[in-house]
């Protein structure tokens, strides 16, 4: 049973389909329904319903079945919400996040960064030297950035993610 009040589940669904999409999921009628029926039942705009269903289907959280009307030849798309496999998706998301955090950590460790004291821009050494260590936006002198705390944050989270 999936707990829709779980902050992780909610966070994931909001990231995928937004607040409107989450509202649609919560209000969605049970069983096979068409996009128009969902829009009617939930009061959510049809284009948002379609977008949400498409994303959910792409992430294996909604099933779509096509039915052809024998007389008119029209196709009807029937949708069923099935978020029982959400854990599998979360495992994939975790892998993806770990991979990207590692790439970022490696990049942060092997480069030197300069920032504008006004917070306009951040550059690596090559970009900064090309710009003669001056901010392209406000003309301030760029200063060296100590990125160790940033690396530490990434490192700590990677370790925690991998240990659990």
């Amino acid at each position, binding site marked *: 049973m999936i707990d829709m009040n779980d902050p992780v589940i909610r*966070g994931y669904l909001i*990231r995928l389909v937004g607040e409107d999409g989450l509202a649609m999921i919560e209000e969605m009628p049970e069983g096979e329904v068409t996009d128009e029926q969902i829009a009617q039942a939930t009061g959510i705009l049809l284009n948002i319903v379609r977008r949400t269903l498409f994303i959910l289907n792409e992430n294996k959280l909604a099933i779509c079945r096509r039915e052809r009307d024998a007389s008119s030849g029209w196709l009807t798309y029937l949708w069923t919400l099935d978020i029982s496999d959400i854990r599998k998706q979360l495992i994939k998301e*975790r892998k*993806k996040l770990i991979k*990207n955090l590692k790439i970022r950590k490696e990049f942060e460790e092997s480069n030197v960064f300069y920032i504008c004291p006004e917070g306009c821009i951040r550059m690596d050494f090559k970009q900064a030297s090309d710009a003669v260590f001056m901010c392209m936006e406000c003309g301030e002198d760029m200063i060296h950035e100590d990125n160790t705390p940033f690396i530490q*944050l990434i490192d700590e989270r990677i370790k925690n993610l991998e240990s*659990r």
Partner: protein
Amino acid sequence: MGIEETALEVISKYEDGVFQNQLWKELDIDSRKCSRIISKLLKDGLITREPAVDNGARTFLIRTTRKEEPSFELLLSGDMFSPCAGCRDACQPESCEKLTAWVLNLSQENSNNQEVSETE
């Protein structure tokens, strides 16, 4: 909670397994009752048991077969979910602003946690 569930919970607490002669003491039951519970859990496939020696005494090492459910809370940084989920941008973790914001939010999360533990 039944005694078997309690026993399983205690066993799960020890990642490297627990000696049977330690288990019954911890559960505050006698060794005969403990072996009956162990047999039941073994039959249900919830634990494994292998002969071992503890402090010179022959006993068994009991381990749970239950895998720890992975925790997904770490995909959240504060209330920000992993920016990589459902991302349609060209993936460049080196310079991804969304990933930067997510990582920076971790420091916020850490300081909030500290505040909570200080007030507790």
